[in-house]
């Protein structure tokens, strides 16, 4: 008797499991292409924010190298996109992370031009305090545009620090830790890019497309 009911219930559960996972799988196949497209669009949008489209003519998101350099933060490998114009290197777009924020890691995207200047910086993900640390986000304040056009001159460039530490970047009222972490991380990533610019362009492409 009990074996029979176990058998029956088991069958019913199996049928439901098949039906529910089946419908999820179906929807997944229908949406997969569109989701990939959306993610790609989002990536292109992000990259274009730090490097205007007029600066490159290659398919940016398909040309990258991976790096485990400690300058780019923990939890590598970090992706570095390579921008080119007429097959000449123009800029490196570096995804880097700083663990020194107020809460959790801060993901940053920095574009460094061939002439060693920074073309743009964006914070792509963070968990900083709303209203205080989150002013590093462009949607909240234009602080992050202070980086545009600057360059890192030495490994320990004293200008690349918040004003409180003798540098040129504003800190926020009530939040010094966040901008300090971002400025340090951008400095290190930019210095890394300047030092390894040609080397990075010679490395093999890790994002699929042939040049």
């Amino acid at each position: 008797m009990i074996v029979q009911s176990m058998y029956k219930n088991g069958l019913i559960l199996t049928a439901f499991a098949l039906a529910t996972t089946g419908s999820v799988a179906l929807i997944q196949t229908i949406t997969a292409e569109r989701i990939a497209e959306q993610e790609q669009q989002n990536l292109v949008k992000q990259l274009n924010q730090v490097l205007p489209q007029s600066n490159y003519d290659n398919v940016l998101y398909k040309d990258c190298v991976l790096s485990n350099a400690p300058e780019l933060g923990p939890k590598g490998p970090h992706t570095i996109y390579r921008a080119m114009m007429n097959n000449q290197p123009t800029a490196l777009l570096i995804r880097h992370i700083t663990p020194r924020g107020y809460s959790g890691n801060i993901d940053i995207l920095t574009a460094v031009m061939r002439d060693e200047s920074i073309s743009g910086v964006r914070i792509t993900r963070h968990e900083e305090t709303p209203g205080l640390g989150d002013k590093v986000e462009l949607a909240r304040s234009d602080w992050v545009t202070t980086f545009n056009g600057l360059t890192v001159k030495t490994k320990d460039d004293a200008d690349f620090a918040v004003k409180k530490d003798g540098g040129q970047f504003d800190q926020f009222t009530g939040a010094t830790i966040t901008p300090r972490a971002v400025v340090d991380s951008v400095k290190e990533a930019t210095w890394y890019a300047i030092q390894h610019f040609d080397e990075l362009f010679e490395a093999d492409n890790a994002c699929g497309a042939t040049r």
Partner: protein
Amino acid sequence: MSQLKTLMKEGVWGNNPALVQLLGLCPLLAVSSTVTNALGLGIATLLVLVGSNVTVSLVREWVPKEIRIPVFVMIIAAFVTIIQLLMNAYTFGLYQSLGIFIPLIVTNCAIIGRAEAFASKNNALLSAWDGIMMGLGFAMVLLVLGAMREVLGQGTLFDGANLLLGEWATLLRIELFTFDSQFLVAILPPGAFLGLGLLIAGKNVIDEQIKAKAVTVDTPEKAPRARVTNLT
């Protein structure tokens, strides 16, 4: 017809999932920091609730009592995953801003609560209606809480509505006032708890007043009566 009306009253007011049953507080408190997020999660929850209620009601004859809970869980999980995939595909911006809270709809007890308490005992039509009304009740609380927190915390309304409704919705954004620094408590989780507490208190006050009114109308004044017992 009157049954539909009762269900409507119950879902939106009398047995509101957020204010009375106090179910699904995790997504409610976490996501209600702006009206846009609240609206997005409200709609997603409503869709899941209607879908799961209808499905549970349709299969209720074939599901033995002993295994109903795992079956309901599978149905709800499937619906949430489907909604998550659809949002990821068609409302990417909102998907990113709601983040982890879409999969968390699975843990919203209001959904399995309605499946167990209502949909497993009623036909598909009534269950769908119950899902809509309960979902509306939940979404309304989310919206009110979201509006309160957004106005107090950021001084805006419908900030980022374009993520949900398309580019035209940028026009919806209302800037009521600007602060030099935001009112943090309203944005952070404590503000959500305080806000919800105030909403529940407000609902209770209104209920009391309705009750008090009804009592004074219904009972005619009684003649004063001398106490004649317990004189020892």
